[in-house]
């Protein structure tokens, strides 16, 4: 077990390093310097030189790379090229709590509803409840999240004028962004849970429990659920990733001041240092989450064969 954790730990570190390296060199090899904007604004050579010195861009690339790694180790993600004196750390400090709040609510909702739907459709297999849940799940998997988010906005904000369109000031503001983020994952979890539940319900120990006269609700919630829920743990990593990419859409459409929106506006403004910094942040965040999930899974499911 300890060997497995150590091994996974170093694998994660290596993944982080590769991600940071790829991101750094891609962002620094994009044609056109960060201070040569498309609008043909003439910048005096001396100003350009000063600015390049400020950001350390006058150094050779490998020196910049080493400096970047050194700063990263101290948790410094650098400054924005476009926004005056705004560091990526500040953007994260401001935006991340907001994104995390919406994301956590969405994760909670996705797990709760997805698991419930999966259980219901597994125990009512072939009945109308199963059909309804699975049609819902197919819709959730098929409709892209940005289409769904825009449609939600259209129906609830434009047509019926029930909910606010932008910002994040009252509980009403959370409803649509959270639905937009969690709809796809709910569908995925429901399908996963259904097939896992059906698999478990076929096992002998369920028959034994029923034969002993254990009430049906206890068979389902105590005996079956405990085993059926294990595959859901493997989805937690992708779930966090889905929240992250979903936030690019949802925060943009609903004007939520989170880091997803910062990332998207960074793309729009070609603010390479912000894109670099946020990609590294997102990447490291997800790699850490995957690491935790892997360990969790090995602890929960003793049957997972850990190769030595």
């Amino acid at each position: 077990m300890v060997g497995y954790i150590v091994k996974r730990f170093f694998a994660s570190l290596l993944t982080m390093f590769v991600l940071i390296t790829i991101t750094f060199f891609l962002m620094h090899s994009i044609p056109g310097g960060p201070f040569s904007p498309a609008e043909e604004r003439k910048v005096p050579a001396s100003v350009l030189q000063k600015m390049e010195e400020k950001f350390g861009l006058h150094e050779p690339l490998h020196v910049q790379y080493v400096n970047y790694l050194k700063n990263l180790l101290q948790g410094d993600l650098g400054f924005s090229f476009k926004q005056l004196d705004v560091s990526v750390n500040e953007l994260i400090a401001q935006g991340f709590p907001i994104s995390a709040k919406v994301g956590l609510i969405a994760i909670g909702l996705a797990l709760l509803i997805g698991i419930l739907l999966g259980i219901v459709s597994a125990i009512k297999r072939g009945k109308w409840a199963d059909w309804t849940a699975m049609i819902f799940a197919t819709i959730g998997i098929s409709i892209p999240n940005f289409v769904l988010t825009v449609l939600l906005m259209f129906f609830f904000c434009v047509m019926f004028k029930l909910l606010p369109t932008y910002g994040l000031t009252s509980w009403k503001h959370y409803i649509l962004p959270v639905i937009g983020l969690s709809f796809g994952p709910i569908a995925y979890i429901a399908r996963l849970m259904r097939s896992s539940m059906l698999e478990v319900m076929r096992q002998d120990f369920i028959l034994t429990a029923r034969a002993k006269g254990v009430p049906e609700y206890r068979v389902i919630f105590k005996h079956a659920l405990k085993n059926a829920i294990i595959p859901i743990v493997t989805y937690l990593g992708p779930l966090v990733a889905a929240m992250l990419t979903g936030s690019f859409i949802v925060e943009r459409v609903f004007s939520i001041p989170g880091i997803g929106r910062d990332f998207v506006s960074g793309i729009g403004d070609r603010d390479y240092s912000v894109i670099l910094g946020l990609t590294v942040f997102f990447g490291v965040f997800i790699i850490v989450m995957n690491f935790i999930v892997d360990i969790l899974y090995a602890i929960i499911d003793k049957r997972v064969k850990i190769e030595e």
Partner: protein
Amino acid sequence: MHSALNKNGDIVVPRESSLVWHDIPDEEFEKLDQSAKQSEVVLRKSKSYWQDAWSRFRKDPLAMAGLVVIVVITLAAIFGPIFSSYSYEDQNIANQNQSPSLEHWFGTDKFGRDIFVRTLYGARISLTIGFVAAGINLVIGVIYGGISGYFGGKIDMIMMRFVDILYGVPDLLYIILLMMFLGNTLESILIALSLTYWIGTARMVRSQVITLKFQEYTLAAKAIGSSNLRILFKHLIPNSMGPIIVTVTFLVPSAIFSEAFLSFLGIGIQVPMASWGTLVNDAIPSLFTQPYQMLFPAIAISITMFALNFIGDGLRDALDPRLKK
């Protein structure tokens, strides 16, 4: 044969009393009716794996509906713009922001461009991206996963570590970075998708090849001196084609989704070209005033995703019945 060898290798002669068939006198035998043989004859032609799969697929109404929808959308995307009097890039300020009418079935956008034609053009681009990206990923994934799984050992370990490293980070982050680097063209989207999506296919192919390479027919092929590459590409890959096709089918909607997502973020296809993603994205500012501009491309993309997912589900059940829920 009325004698046999026992486990010590001695010849065992059965006792006199036991009746052996050649002890029965000939007249005791009776000729069977020849028609009894008929029951042994195979009347129907035996079905190949693919015919069997097709007959299963045909019985799945959702999958067939999906197939029909995709064929119709593909034909409309290829031939539709030819028969329309509008072009996807012609601007007409006099006609801007018109609601859907007989003249313009889906209305016009803020430059007076016909949204129906633009949606059909979007279908061309989105479907091209979906199928070409899936095709490229099929080739890369099969070669990479096949080599890794078949040769095993050190090669496998190195190749799979590399895949594991890439696997840890969401595709979309890589794709966004690559798009920033490559610029907004159709080719760069295809390159970006090709560089990331093959990972899942490669893993799947590898596990298939590993299970198949210990089968007898692989041993037989080796025994008659087939080369490694021949065994891999003539025997192992064709035998794992079912699961491979299923994986690749699901890649088509993912690729279409990724392109639309990129376009939605403003780093996909560039104007005046349009994909479904850019059409939805362009319509957001006018969502409150001209919602139809967003509605039609959004419906088009959703229906396509539905159809492709149904086809994928149907193919999975048809090609790999063991996986059937």
